[in-house]
């Protein structure tokens, strides 16, 4: 199949997948939840600003508190994006295999790899738009109310989008192996492991326990999405804010460049495994 034909097929599959994904109720619920969270976030920020105005306060401390609140907003937006990614995409392989919808597509002159890649591209487009909207919205609200902006916002956005794509890869892989429900529970469970691992590493900064650090690293190896978030948090904070160990986003354990490379390799390997599984399995 020529490159032109191959890209034509990928465009068709990605296009219909994006349209299908955009109709998922869970996407709109997640967007609605994001809007609600932004509204609460805006009110909380405004109350904080009003509270600061009533008493003498060093601009430095005020800045630290407000940018800390911005990080809380971004973290919430990040969690919501990852969960939305898993819940919207979990059905696309497992569900369509189960219902037989895939049969009419898999008998067309398309390889299974093209079906999987096309679907992945469709969901990637949806996830990136979702992250851009919620991430951009959070920063816009924070800036409008308090005037603060994150450091390296673009890096933060790219890392959060990357984190979602790692979760998407995991979901696709599980979708080639298990039924929708099993794959969904598995994917959310792995995300839970990653979440706990991230916090263990964070806590280790205070407890100085090498065992906790090791445990955190192991969980980050099992599911590296949360470590990508922590890197994003590091990039978006000022060095000074990050160094304040009282913050939950303190830079006590910053995932290195190697951790990001690991996450990329992890996702690539899992994606290739998903293609292999999908090609080998009976439909």
């Amino acid at each position: 199949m020529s490159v032109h034909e191959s890209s034509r097929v990928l465009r068709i599959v990605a296009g219909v997948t994006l349209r299908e994904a955009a109709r998922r109720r869970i996407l709109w619920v997640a967007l609605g939840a994001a809007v609600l969270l932004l509204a609460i976030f805006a009110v909380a920020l405004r109350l904080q600003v009003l509270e600061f105005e009533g008493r003498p306060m060093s601009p430095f401390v005020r800045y630290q508190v407000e940018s800390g609140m911005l990080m809380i907003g971004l973290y919430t937006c990040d969690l919501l994006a990852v969960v939305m990614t898993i819940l919207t995409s979990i059905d696309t392989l497992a569900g369509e295999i189960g219902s037989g919808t895939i049969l009419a597509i898999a008998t067309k002159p398309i390889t299974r790899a093209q079906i999987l890649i096309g679907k992945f591209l469709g969901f990637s487009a949806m996830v990136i738009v979702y992250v851009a909207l919620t991430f951009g919205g959070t920063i816009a609200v924070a800036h409008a109310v308090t005037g603060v902006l994150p450091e390296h916002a673009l890096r933060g956005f790219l890392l959060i989008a990357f984190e979602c794509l790692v979760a998407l890869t995991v979901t696709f892989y599980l979708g080639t192996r298990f039924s929708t429900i099993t794959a969904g529970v598995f994917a959310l469970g792995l995300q839970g492991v990653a979440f706990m691992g991230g916090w263990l590493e964070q806590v280790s900064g205070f407890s100085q326990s090498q065992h906790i650090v090791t445990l955190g690293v192991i969980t980050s190896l099992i599911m590296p999405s949360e470590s990508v978030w922590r890197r994003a948090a590091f990039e978006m904070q000022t060095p000074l804010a990050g160094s304040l160990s009282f913050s939950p986003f303190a830079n006590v354990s910053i995932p290195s460049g190697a951790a990001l490379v690991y996450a990329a390799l992890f996702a690539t390997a899992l994606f290739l495994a998903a293609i292999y599984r999908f090609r080998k399995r009976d439909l």
Partner: protein
Amino acid sequence: MSAPNGGFAIDARGLSKTFGPRTAVRDLSLTVKRGEIFGFLGPNGAGKSTSIKMLLGLVHPTGGQGSVLGAPLGAPSVRRDIGFLPEDFRFYDWLTATELLVLHGRLAGLTDAKARARAPEVLELVAMSPHAHRRLRGFSKGMLQRLGLAQALIHEPALIFLDEPTSGLDPMGRRMVRDVIRLQRDRGATVFLNSHLLSEIEITCDRVAFIKDGEIVASRDMADASAAGARHVSVRARNASAAMLGRIAPPATNPSLSGDEIRFDVPFEDAIADVVRALVEAGAQVVRVSPERTSLEDEFMRLVGEDHAL
């Protein structure tokens, strides 16, 4: 056309499929000529769908090999010439009938313009034109089945697999399916028809294979059967008696008497005249001779057993 398959649209040799301890298909060997309407008949759960899925590359065989239109099973390039209606066709229900057909046409390799031009033609073929711009969400099972048939035909494939095409259809719909299959034969296409409906196969197909418990137990050429297969013969004679049965000699077999009817079987039609002549010479006052072809149903019941009655 590559030499090994000798011009067959389908050539399967010893295909098998096991799912864990369960054998779904055992040593499936069959050939389907180009332009033939081939019926694959068997009770529910006999392995028909698994067989069709192996031929389409959807299910990987655990044994054997085969080719479809000269290409190995599952080769994507050849699927441009293949159409498939799954047993229970379904698709994204937010699409309109036309959108679905254009999408499938494009996936099958048609240009956007060609797919848009073909969509109304195939909708007309399956009598769905009035619903061209309705969404699938409101469609009945029969309407979805018609649309599934349309998507299998939109790119005018050389080989069409239909898995229980009349499932969910009313008598009008069944007739439409038969007409569509004949149209495909007229344009030279090969049709592989999976069904558990005997009459459907009997009316439509050139050749039939029976599958039972994952194994082909018999095959039958319908054209030969109708030309020479007057297997049961019933002769009504006013003075029929048991003594006359002695005059029925091979190749005629199984003589019996029921009231004023003498019955026997013949392996070919030409044998009937000799038996009737012998009966007349024995004094029989023959008033009617009724050759009856063994119906597919008789053969089916004989092959798969009454416990699988449909």
